[in-house]
């Protein structure tokens, strides 16, 4: 179920999932994976491709994460967050 920790290579650029970002780390959304409903929901909440996200907080025991996107704070379940592929922005923690 969970894809956390798994790195994916695409076009020579290193991508990771949202859960791989460190607290305080930023990334640009490249793609959201998963079922139709989930992908649509994430897009509606503002998590669309090429949007910048900031990981604010990780819950304990592999729990949900808190992210900031478009000036709003969202909580995403671990399974949900691991479906969001991001390109980490440099000079900030990514993993």
């Amino acid at each position, binding site marked *: 179920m969970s894809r956390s920790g798994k790195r994916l290579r695409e076009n020579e650029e290193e991508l990771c999932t949202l859960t791989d970002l460190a607290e305080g780390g930023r990334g640009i959304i490249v*793609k*959201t994976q998963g*079922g*139709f*409903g*989930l*992908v*649509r*929901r*994430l*897009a*509606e*909440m*503002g998590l*669309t*491709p*090429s*949007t910048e996200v900031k990981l604010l*907080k*990780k*819950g*304990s*025991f*592999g*729990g*949900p994460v*808190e992210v900031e996107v*478009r*000036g*709003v*704070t*969202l*909580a*995403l*379940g*671990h*399974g*949900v967050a691991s479906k969001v592929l991001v390109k980490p922005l440099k000079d900030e923690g990514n993993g």
Partner: protein
Amino acid sequence: MARRLRVALAGNANVGKSVIFNQLTGLNQVIGNWPGKTVEKAEGTLHFKGYTIRVIDLPGTYSLSAFSIEEIVSREYIAIEKPDVIINVVDASALERNLYFTLQLLELEAPVVMALNQVDFAAKKGIRINVEKLSEILGIPVVPTVAITGSGINELLTTVVALASGEIKPKPLKIRFGAEVEKRVQKLQKLVEKRLPRMCAIYPARWIAIKLLEKDEDVASKVKNYAGGTEALEYAEKQAAELEKMHGEQSPVILASERYSIASKIAKEVTVTITPPRISLEQKLDTITTHKILGYPILIGILLATFSLIFIGGGFLSSFLETVVSDVSTHIEALLAFLPQEVVKPLVNGVFGGIVAGITIALPYIVPFYIILALLEDSGYLPRAAFLMDNFMHKMGLHGKAFIPLVLGYGCSVPACIGCRIMETERERLIAAFVVTLVPCAARTVVILGLVGRYVGLHAALALYIFDLALVFVLGRIAFKVLPGEPVGLIMEMPPYKRPLVKNVLAKTWSRTKDFVCVAFPIIVAGSLTITILDATGFIGYIVAGARPIISGWLGLPKVAGVPLIFGVLRKELALILLSELVPLETLSAAQMIVFALVTMLYIPCIATIAALLREFGLKKAAVITIVNVTFALFFGGLVYRLLLLFTT
């Protein structure tokens, strides 16, 4: 004669929409359900400048797609009922995300007035918005408000009336997507206009076209019902597939991106960020309450405080009301003394038994619960609790938000069932409610502790609780697997903490209590009356005799135990009281006590809970949950009895 206006409030959750609603209508409001839906519907009326204005508070949603029932309810209301004005309540501190919703209102070609709310809070965060420019770009009136203080409300109403009377002529922004998307929307719109003229009389043609391109399942199923619908649908599918191939994304993601880029552009144009925000008290509070370690003791503390408040307050109210109500019923019995007693007694007992149960059991716990719920809702703590418990709740096939009704279930199943509304989809609501009915409420705790805890030992009582928790996990998972539909993970906004307003909390409590009394009381009274009539006519005897193979044969209980189990439906602690009247409790074996408590813990939640389930899910689902509960209670009762016999002999 007063002219009438219908106004709907629409917007995201957590933007102060309900505060504006309360400012507009005061206590003059009714909370109920949308017909056939588990969605709260709040309505109220007010008088302004010779107008009688009926206000409907649409559910707070982030979009107007077909994701949740709330979203469908909202857009159907806007499209079909065509209210005179829609007040779009917008959070000034999160303009971009809120504009995403506004753009969809404009797609629906609704007459919109924007209430730019929480401008004070936005200013605190260093955000200033150019209201005139925003209004100019969107082509709709925009009124800045601070709902909490009531500032701007009068101007908002003046604008609403001006728009409705045609004094203001808005020129709503014509949304144009990127070339590839726009081209397809327009082609599709032409086809829709030509092929679906009757549907276009209800919904705007462009909106239908956009929704078809977005593969909106609700609109697609409506289109199918019209002649020529299939052709439009096939064409839309082809266009969507082309777009998807081009972008490598699902078409709803492409359209959401388009809308967001428009929203983002507008927000940037009208927003000035003055100072970088410094860390506020609210942010500190947020850091502590969602902290990896510290968050949990705080959560436990808040839950314990909630429970003790509900129990101490509720227990006090309950015993107070009990004396009052029993006095009243003695008087009524005396008044009716001239009538034949064999008729009067069961009627009085039945009707009053029901009302007494409602007043003394349900209400005293529900009112304090509603107050605390409103406080937790309005302060913004609930999402924090859900955040902390998300991982744990996934183990039973639900997500973090379900933690709240589950915990409430240990107090009383009734508010817990109603609390399942916080889940997004009907599927999640149903799983949560099912799980909640299996959680031992306070009344069941009385039976477990009063019988097993007292006579067998606390370890046995504890074992029952652990067994129950295990069962909740297993059955929750099974329900998760069995029920159709895509499971939804946690995607939840974490609104900033806010100080709850007394006025708002009381208004919510009042209207929710009113709603509960109107719906649950008649059902409780009817149920109670049925049982007492069965008793008075001697039918209970037949039922007990008929149930004997189950009660004595399978469960190994004394045959009279059937009576308390049947009456336990009225109120669970009554099961223990009646049992003690029928058999000296000491004469029961440990195994019998454990089985009796186990069955009481699991079988149909009391009549008030059934009423709540009916209210929330309708007859069929309420019946299924009830039957499943009874079946499991009997199955495990007999099984445990046999296992205990094996170990003790």
